[in-house]
């Protein structure tokens, strides 16, 4: 394309409209991120305003030697893998159900939005009460049906805490997954299914050969966003299980070092670790799913 003076002037205009947003973003996100990366190389503390020294990669060496950090890494990965997998499967079942024509579908769809809309803190507290070891309704229900012999301390027992956190996350985010998949399902042309029926495809065959391939791009985008979101999980654990080692995520670990222990340098190194992990997983998922994220706005509803 040959640039005429008019289009060149227009391109200059583009940057004028972008500049305020870019400047604010650089100030609130770019600069703090750079400072965090810098602090990770120092022995800076939050409580002393005085000077600090460059310590090279010492913080990262300590991090690599800390068992608690690796537990947090494992917790984060288990949490992400388990909750995203469960949300996707459950979300798919719900989306397929809601895709059927029935009365009250609109109301049902609205009901699905509510868990998504409420603060994570609220859902954590609601489930914290349901999972209460002495007075929780979950224990009462499981005891009454004979599934457990004695009340369980769902959020305090180190063997159960991570599972409890995953269950609450699945409850909170499955509806969101279901709605995204439902939007994709409703764009599928019905003629395809008629053609499939003519060719003798049963409901399962139609799902495997028509539905799944066609909603794959939407599914991949949803999985990527959910995975990145799950990796930075903080609120759920903070409210449900506090700083308990058994379920602490990388965000919990980093904040504890940074704020509770005032160790700015070491906490920044932990935060940098999470940042790197998120970047690596993003790259991996994009390559694995071969998704062109840049194309997403073109599909805007």
């Amino acid at each position, binding site marked *: 394309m040959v640039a005429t003076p008019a289009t060149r002037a227009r*391109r200059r205009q*583009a*940057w004028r*409209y*972008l500049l305020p*947003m870019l400047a*604010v*973003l650089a100030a*609130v996100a770019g*600069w*703090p*991120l750079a*400072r*965090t990366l810098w*602090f990770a190389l120092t022995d800076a503390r*939050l409580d002393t305003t005085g000077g600090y020294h460059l310590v090279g990669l010492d913080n990262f060496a300590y991090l690599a030697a800390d068992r608690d950090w690796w537990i947090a890494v494992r917790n984060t990965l288990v949490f992400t893998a388990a909750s995203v997998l469960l949300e996707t499967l459950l979300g798919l079942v719900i989306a397929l*159900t809601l895709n059927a024509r029935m009365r009250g579908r609109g109301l049902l769809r*609205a*009901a699905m*939005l*509510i868990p998504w*809309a*409420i*603060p*994570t*803190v*609220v859902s*954590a*507290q*609601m*489930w914290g*009460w*349901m999972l209460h070891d002495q*007075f929780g*309704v979950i224990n*009462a229900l499981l005891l009454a049906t004979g599934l457990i012999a004695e009340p369980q301390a769902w959020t305090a027992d180190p063997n159960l805490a991570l599972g409890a956190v995953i269950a609450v996350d699945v*409850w*909170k985010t499955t*509806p*969101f997954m279901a709605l995204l998949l439902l939007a994709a399902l409703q764009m599928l042309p019905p003629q395809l299914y008629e053609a499939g029926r003519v060719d003798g495809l049963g409901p399962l065959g139609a799902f495997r050969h028509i539905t799944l391939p066609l909603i794959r791009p939407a599914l991949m*985008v*949803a999985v990527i*966003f*959910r995975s990145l*979101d799950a990796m*930075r999980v903080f*609120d759920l654990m*903070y*409210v449900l299980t506090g700083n308990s080692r058994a379920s602490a995520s990388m*965000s919990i670990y980093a904040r504890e070092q940074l*704020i509770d222990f005032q160790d700015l340098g070491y906490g*920044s190194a932990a935060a940098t670790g999470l*940042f790197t992990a*998120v*970047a690596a997983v993003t790259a991996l998922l994009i390559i694995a799913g071969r998704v062109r*994220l840049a194309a997403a*706005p*073109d599909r*805007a*509803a």
Partner: protein
Amino acid sequence: MAAPPSLRPIARRIRRLAGRLLFALLVAAIVTYTVFPFYWAIVASLKSGNELFSASLLPADPGWENYRAIFRDRPFARSILNSLLVATATVAVSLALAAAAAFALGRITFRGRGALLLAILAVSMFPQIAILAGLFELIRALGLYNNLLALVFSHLTFTLPFAVWVLTGFMREMPTALEEAAMIDGATPFVVLTRIFLPLLAPALVTTGLLTFIVSWNEFLFALTFTLTDDKRTVPVAIALITGASRFELPWGQIMAASVTVTLPLIALVLVFQRRIIAGLAAGAVKG
């Protein structure tokens, strides 16, 4: 042995009935799973005294004591006001900056546009903890620690890229003919944006504003870290930090009352705007 011909229609009807029953059960299971925790929170918030500790499905003697307590004994009204102020200011700043940026990103082709969009998306996805240290330093240097402005400032880190991303999607769908006609009549890009696109995009702005509002209203990590005193807390932090006489005696009735209080307006918003919200989420395909 095959059924006699006269019985076949009945067998088919039974099978269809069974299928419909199964489907109804599935729908009922989905609704129960989604709604029961809210129901249980409402029930708990209306129970008082020792009744809270029985697993009865209905409060025997429903009362408003828990609701009165959170507004009388705690600064919960103040927390709601704080959250409203922070979320409203965040939405206003995000929309103003994002509308201009989306105009450039959605209507003008320039080199590096795709990469820029991806970079903006990446900012909205990176973990908040990664900027916590740098933001803390910046906020203290600006003298904004324990100040609601610190929250507006920090919430922009994720609401702004989100708003840009969603609005760019909507901006791209505007017909080119309008813009060309206005340009031929000598309208400047600024006039095109403010007089033509923004009025047409009003529904999209409402959607984006609503989503941004919810995300800011729900934010926890920054609100917890950058405020110190009870009178500066936002709703999520206030609800997370409700404590009783001892660590082992949480006032669950009050926690549930506070949870229900902030959830009801959200339910109303969601019911009114559900179509818009779903369209916006599909356009943004962003976090839950």
